[in-house]
């Protein structure tokens, strides 16, 4: 194995053919079910997440229709409660976090110059787990057994005494199960980012998007266990008569809130931080310069990651906390505006000093800046306890979090989809459809959610299925509902653009945007092995600095081999053979899914799941003749 300035032509053609064979997924249904290729898994992850987005969006439209007029009889309270719970749970657990992780799974190996994620089969297992969890929730909803106590499901309303039937049990098990998938993706991204970078890509040269994904993945690893523990405790309270949340037997109702929000607050930063990575990539490409202040941006990301874990009590300001505690969390909640502010100022500096060329993806990034600043400012408002005591649990907060989640995460995501669609499909999306979808979405979004600030201050609480005419809320609600219709049109335009592209877009080539990161050096769509020869980088913007980089040769092409490098400096360490396609991840996901679903009804489900898992994990890890990999340290 060695680094050469440029590979020889004949050797390259031969290597390319061999790699295509080695990294290929078997054809047909079996191949589709057993693939461990990160791009295939990530693509279906993104598609599934957007299907859930559309489903939850339809629920939102139904809610807005119900709320458009006072005392509407369109939907009764029971169905409405299920609708807003499934809308929130789908958006947060089945769309927002999975889609960000999936974009990471797709882009990170390409951006750091490697061939696959660190644990390819576990990656596939994560997707199947996610799909089963999402299917569980939605099939339950269609069977009238969807959860109906809100996406954060406070006890005692969600406890065994006040929530009859299996609705909340299904929610609790869905959470535990789906967050396994989130943890899997988090682990993938951390290990891949730290150990699989191509030579020369030291930590201070990795793209900001990769930094964002790394911070997000570390946050996932620390935050998801809290919600899994909490939902398991709730499931146990309901199923096997434990007393975690039963005050009469020594439990505490506020314990649920603490456990949930210890996860819940980092969750929103888990959603937001990758979006900042997208924005950095988009602004770099369309302002034609690297983001200003790379070290500050990285420090801002890392400090957001840490600070995000110290804010959770701001969701509980109305529960009668001691003043000192309230002050602490007000301070922390305001303080996190500083790293976010650093990022915004660096982006603005980049835009101001670059040569901006407007394309549809950039519009989404610019829309993000406008909407996120507004959402962040209302966030500073509700961080302050006195004002929060008026705004908490009202439509003001609904407006705030939609500004930071839709404006702050979905807009960058849509821009990222348009930006990387040429890479994923090999075709350019329609520029005019892209601009129109942005404009309609931007107007529709503001029309929907800006009036909600006033509605909240006018006294309208959250989660109400209707309201009296004399409250005076009808005007704002009608406006918001009209805006929701406009947003729906915007989403349809965007979807039409995506659907139109693979068939009729102009061929894109490897680098249609003239961008700087490594994924633009491979063909569109990328071959299964990503790079024929792994590149060697010398700067943060490899394609702008060295258009024809040195490459690593000598990795085996007859087995799926990758290069493992040092975590800090990315000096080559050893070669490692990855696993190929396998049916065991799907079978393991099914096994644990069966266990979880039966556990909704009886604790024997845990036993059943354990037995099935024993079988499938044995199959998964059964030793095969492992191809020899070179573990001796090699100098390049």
């Amino acid at each position, binding site marked *: 194995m060695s680094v050469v300035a440029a590979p020889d032509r004949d050797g390259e053609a031969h290597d390319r053919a061999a790699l295509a064979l080695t990294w290929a997924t078997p054809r047909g249904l079996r191949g589709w079910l057993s693939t461990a290729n990160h791009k295939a898994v990530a693509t279906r992850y993104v598609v599934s997440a957007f299907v859930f987005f559309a489903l939850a969006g339809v629920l939102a439209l139904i809610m807005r229709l119900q709320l458009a007029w006072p005392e509407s009889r369109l939907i009764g*309270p029971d169905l409405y409660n299920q609708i807003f719970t499934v809308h929130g749970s789908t958006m947060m657990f089945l769309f927002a976090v999975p889609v960000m992780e999936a974009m990471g799974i797709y882009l990170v190996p390409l951006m750091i110059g490697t061939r696959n994620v660190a644990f390819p089969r576990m990656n596939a297992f994560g997707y199947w787990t996610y799909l089963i969890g999402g299917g569980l929730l939605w099939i339950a909803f269609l069977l009238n057994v969807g959860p109906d106590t809100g996406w954060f499901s406070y006890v005692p309303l969600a406890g065994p005494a006040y929530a009859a039937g299996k609705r909340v049990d299904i929610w609790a098990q869905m959470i535990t199960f789906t967050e396994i998938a989130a943890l899997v993706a988090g682990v993938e991204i951390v290990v891949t980012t730290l150990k699989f970078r191509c030579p020369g890509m030291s930590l201070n040269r990795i793209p900001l998007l990769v930094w964002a994904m790394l911070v997000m993945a570390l946050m996932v690893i620390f935050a998801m266990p809290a919600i899994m523990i909490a939902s398991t405790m709730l499931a146990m309270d309901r199923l096997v008569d434990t007393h975690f949340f039963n005050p009469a037997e020594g439990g505490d109702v506020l314990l649920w809130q603490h456990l949930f929000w210890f996860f819940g607050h980092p969750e929103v930063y888990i959603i937001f931080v990758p979006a900042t990575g997208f924005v950095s990539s988009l602004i770099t490409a369309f302002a*034609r310069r690297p983001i*200003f202040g790379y070290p500050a941006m990285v420090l801002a990301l890392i400090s957001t990651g840490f600070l995000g874990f110290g804010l959770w009590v701001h969701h509980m300001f*109305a*529960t009668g906390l001691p003043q000192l505690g309230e002050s602490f969390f007000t301070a922390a909640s305001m303080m996190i505006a500083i790293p976010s502010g650093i990022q915004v100022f660096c982006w603005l500096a980049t835009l101001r*000093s670059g040569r*901006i060329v407007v394309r549809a993806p950039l519009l989404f990034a610019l829309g993000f800046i406008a909407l996120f600043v507004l959402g962040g400012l209302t966030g500073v408002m509700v961080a*302050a306890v006195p004002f929060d005591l008026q705004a908490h649990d009202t439509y003001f907060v609904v407006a705030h979090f939609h500004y930071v989640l839709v404006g702050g995460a979905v807009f960058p995501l849509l821009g990222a989809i348009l930006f990387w669609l040429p890479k994923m499909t090999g075709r350019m999306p329609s520029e005019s459809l892209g601009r129109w979808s942005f404009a309609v979405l931007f107007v529709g979004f503001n029309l929907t959610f800006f009036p909600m600030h006033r509605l909240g201050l006018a006294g309208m609480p959250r*989660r109400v299925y209707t309201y009296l005419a004399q409250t005076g809320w009808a005007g*704002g609600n009608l406006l918001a509902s009209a805006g929701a219709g406009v947003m729906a049109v915007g989403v349809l335009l965007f979807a039409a653009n995506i659907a139109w592209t693979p068939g009729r877009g102009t061929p894109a080539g490897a680098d249609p945007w003239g961008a700087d990161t490594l994924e633009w050096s491979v063909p569109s769509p990328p071959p299964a092995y990503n790079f024929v020869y792994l590149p060697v980088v010398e700067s943060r913007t490899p394609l702008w600095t060295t258009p024809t980089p040195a490459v690593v040769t000598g990795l085996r092409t007859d087995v799926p081999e990758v290069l493992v490098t040092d975590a800090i400096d990315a000096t080559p360490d050893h070669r490692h053979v990855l696993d190929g396609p396998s049916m065991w991840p799907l079978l393991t996901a099914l096994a644990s899914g069966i266990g979880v679903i039966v556990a909704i009804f009886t604790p024997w489900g845990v036993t059943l799941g354990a037995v099935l898992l024993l079988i499938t994990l044995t199959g998964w890890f059964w030793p095969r003749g492992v191809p020899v990999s070179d573990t001796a340290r090699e100098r390049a």
Partner: protein
Amino acid sequence: MTRVALTLALTALGGCAGRPAALDPAGPQAARIAGFWSLLLAVSIAVSVVVLAVLLDALARRRGGSLPPPPAVDPRLERRLTFGVAAAVVLTAVLLLFLFVASLRTARALNALGEPDALTVEVTGHQWWWEVEYWDSAPARRVRTANEIHVPVGRPVLVKTRSADVIHSLWAPRLAGKKDLLPQHATSLWMQADRPGMFDGQCAEFCGHQHAHMRLTVVAEAPEAFQTWLAHQRTPAAEPTEPALLHGREVFLAGPCALCHTIAGTTAAARLGPDLTHLASRTTLAAGTLPNDLGALAAWLVDPQSVKPGVHMPPAALPPRDFQALVAYLGSLR
């Protein structure tokens, strides 16, 4: 199309008439919060304007055409940008510190309301109504009512809150911020009304099927009027004289009603549902959902599920004469 747009615009503007409740304070707590809000709003507008201005300025310098190659980095420009970004960050930190201090001062002021002989009201949240009790050391002088909190103008009121079932939240935006009602821990809220009037509130923590219809009214009146009201609430229900009302009382006592409700002065003394002793003196029925008139009362009694689906009160399945007598009797409980 234009008609639709015009209707929408007028409706929206109609919604904009008058200040929203939280920004139209009628007491010192809400007033302090509203004042703090003005500060937050001013800072937010300033920051948004500056950020949007910089954004639009950058956008105004855009180029058309295809994507040019990236330019070389200009070290002087980088130094100026560093200075600019650093200044913005420092300014942000200073602004946040300023807002934090303002928040602390407002919070301290909110917690300072109170005096030794403040009026104490105990509010217990139920699914989906508010039980309001004016405590007194002599049990016979205690007043229990529902969905309405009467307070004297100008006097601080300590509202001690707890829940009988799930978590609720007491919120009267024109008077004070909200406080959650928990089944386990007692919480409390200070409020004070500085002018007479009726101030609406609503439960602000999702509590089940009829969370949307769990409203309450805070009635602030002059201290003498308040004492008169309190004294009247202490009296048992007036003894009916007309035969129709007597019959109505019999229907009440013989049927399901007495199993859940209290009417002081009769043998009905159950506490599952609201106290009805002075039902007709309240401004609303069914936790603020219906106006308090005989027609609404009849509609509520004949089928509560059509007004508040999921509510715990069963329908009154009575023959018409008994039903009318019951409605008349309840309507007479002033």
